[in-house]
């Protein structure tokens, strides 16, 4: 740079060899100031002055009042700028000629804005854009606007990306993204600071339940926080995570809330036999009890509990996940309250190993509305005959039947048990019944006139089922179905979706799981979206033919597509 500037001075000389130089010298050289230039300038000034004095005419013009040096320097600078401008213009002209745009430019170098067609002087800040099929520059005003606009679109893009991310995250929780309600905001704050709360006060049963569930979910329900929910007026108490509540605190439930009618204790591994004995004295109004994981309670305690006045009063018993619930415990349960029971759940009770005790069930149970027998110790324990007998007695009132994992069952119980005896059934869950086939399910649902239609059907992992069976279910219950789970019914083919698309409508269906039904593709999604107007959640995990290209309703959330990853 300095060299070029040096050359531009009038001397035209180049310094090939240089000795050591001070900082000031090199600075001056960098700035293009050299002793040589100053000297020549001075000499020229002197010469001119002499000439002027000799001429004597142009005193006012050239001589002026200021010092010569300044004028000369100014002139030189303007000359330099002029040269630079000239060059830039030439360059621009060249560039525009290449673009074929020289018609917009006037001879003096001014330009017309491509946007507003205003004449302006082009500068390095002028924006060059392509618009209306032409390429040109924007005037300063339009440039600012354009830059603003571009910044905005960029920001919008970032915003949109954030939105997509959040929506995708909400999708996994099966929720739509929406602004949290004030109640939710409050509940969050309360849950976070639950240790500082001494009394919940009158916040409403629904909010109480909500807080309880959130505390259970984030595992902060303990001896202290559980006490917040103990209100003598409570009729229902549910603690979904009792693992941090010790035996003493569990006694408090009965002590503070003797009027409870429905008690839910989930993961109650610390529920001691003393607790259950205490409950047997205190809960005089108890009607429904749900105990999941009460593995400290032994056979004798179960028997004592069912034998107490409280036990005799029970209308609903749900027991899950304990190996200490023995055949004798079940006999005691049936003896004491079997005749009154409306709800019974026996799930994953590995201590129940006697088939003859299971076979007692039909002799006691009479008016069940809810029956769940799931995941027995051995599949032989639950056979067709038992279920047929149970249906024969209870079928009239039965609304919910859950037989998940009773893989010893075959088509027979469907045809001879469920079909003739269950007019009121609305929920049927047959997870993992690998022996039921198309013919059994078809003969159950074809002309099943006594039943008006099921609302909740779960056939997940019934791997022997195919199109015919599933179609029979859907044809029978399409008007009433609300939830349907066909996860892993792998024999379903594309033809089924076509068939139901042409013949069936699902006015009430809201949730559908088609995970690992690999024949499900984009066109199947489009069909389902069309025939189920209320459907909001459709799960398609493992269906890799479902892509983001599927044409579905806006308010239908499809979960589990590969393309939805965050």
């Amino acid at each position, binding site marked *: 740079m300095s060299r070029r500037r040096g050359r531009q001075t009038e001397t035209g000389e180049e310094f090939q060899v240089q000795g050591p130089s001070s900082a000031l010298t090199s600075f001056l050289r960098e700035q293009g100031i050299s002793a040589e230039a100053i000297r020549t300038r001075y000499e020229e000034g002197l010469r001119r002055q002499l000439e002027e004095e000799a001429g004597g005419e142009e005193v006012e013009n050239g001589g002026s009042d200021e010092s010569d040096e300044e004028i000369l320097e100014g002139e030189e600078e303007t000359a330099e700028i002029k040269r630079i401008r000239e060059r830039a213009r030439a360059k621009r002209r060249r560039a525009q000629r290449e673009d074929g745009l020289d018609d917009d430019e006037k001879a003096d170098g001014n330009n017309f804005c491509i946007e507003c067609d205003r004449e302006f002087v082009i500068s390095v800040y002028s924006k060059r854009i392509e618009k209306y099929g032409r390429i040109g520059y924007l005037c300063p005003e339009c440039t600012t606007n354009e830059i603003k606009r571009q910044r905005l679109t960029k920001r919008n893009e970032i*915003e949109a990306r954030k939105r997509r991310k959040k929506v995708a995250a909400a999708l996994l929780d099966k929720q739509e993204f929406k602004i949290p309600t*004030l109640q939710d905001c409050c509940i969050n704050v309360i849950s976070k600071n639950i240790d500082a709360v001494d009394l919940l006060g009158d916040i409403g049963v629904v*909010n109480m339940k909500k807080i309880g569930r959130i505390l259970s979910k984030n595992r902060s329900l303990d001896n202290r926080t559980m006490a917040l929910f103990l209100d003598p007026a409570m009729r229902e108490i549910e603690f979904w995570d009792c693992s941090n509540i010790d035996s003493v605190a569990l006694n408090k439930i009965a002590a503070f809330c003797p009027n409870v009618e429905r008690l839910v204790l989930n993961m109650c591994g610390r529920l001691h036999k003393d607790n259950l004995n205490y409950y047997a004295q205190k809960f005089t109004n108890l009607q429904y009890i749900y105990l999941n994981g009460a593995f400290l309670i032994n056979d004798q305690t179960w028997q004592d509990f069912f034998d107490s006045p409280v036990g005799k009063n029970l209308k609903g018993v749900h027991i899950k996940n304990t190996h200490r619930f023995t055949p004798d415990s079940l006999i005691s349960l049936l003896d004491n309250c079997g005749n009154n029971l409306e709800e019974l759940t026996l799930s994953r009770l590995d201590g129940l190993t006697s088939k003859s005790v299971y076979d007692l069930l039909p002799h006691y149970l009479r008016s069940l509305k809810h029956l769940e027998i799931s995941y027995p110790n051995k599949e032989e324990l639950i056979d067709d005959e038992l279920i047929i007998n149970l249906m024969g007695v209870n079928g009239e009132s039965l609304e919910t039947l859950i037989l998940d994992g009773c893989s010893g069952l075959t088509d027979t119980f469907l045809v001879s048990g469920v079909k003739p005896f269950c007019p009121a059934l609305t929920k049927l869950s047959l997870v993992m019944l690998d022996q039921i086939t198309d013919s059994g399910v078809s003969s159950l649902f074809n002309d099943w006139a006594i039943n008006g239609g099921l609302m909740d059907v779960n056939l997940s992992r019934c791997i022997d089922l195919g199109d015919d069976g599933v179609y029979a279910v859907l044809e029978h219950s399409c008007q009433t179905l609300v939830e349907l789970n066909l996860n892993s019914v792998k024999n379903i083919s594309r033809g089924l979706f076509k068939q139901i698309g042409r013949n069936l409508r699902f006015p009430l269906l809201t949730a559908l799981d088609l995970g690992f039904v690999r024949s499900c593709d984009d066109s199947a999604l489009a069909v389902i979206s069309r025939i189920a107007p209320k459907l909001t959640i459709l799960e398609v995990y493992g269906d890799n033919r479902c892509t983001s290209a599927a044409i579905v309703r806006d308010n239908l959330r499809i979960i589990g597509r590969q393309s939805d990853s965050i």
Partner: protein
Amino acid sequence: MSEEVSPYVTLISNDGFQFLISKDAALVSGTLKGMLNTSFQESSTNTIKLHELDGVLLEKVIEYLYYNLKYKESVDVPEFDIPTEMALELLVAADFLDV
């Protein structure tokens, strides 16, 4: 006459504070919406007395009504700030107002 088309609603707390808020904001609350869309006195005078809420609480509730109105459509929503000591009372109020 002019009251019926007024875009504003007056909310009065139990300690006498009056808040003039836009009708759109008031309609965020299910309870207020119910009061304003019926033939009750509240809808003709556009004034609602909330005996359950004091001024501080009502101010916070109104802050939320406008917060909801502002961010209803957007995703990048800043968290609504609630003083910890107010959370329980506010929950009761929110439960009552259905927001």
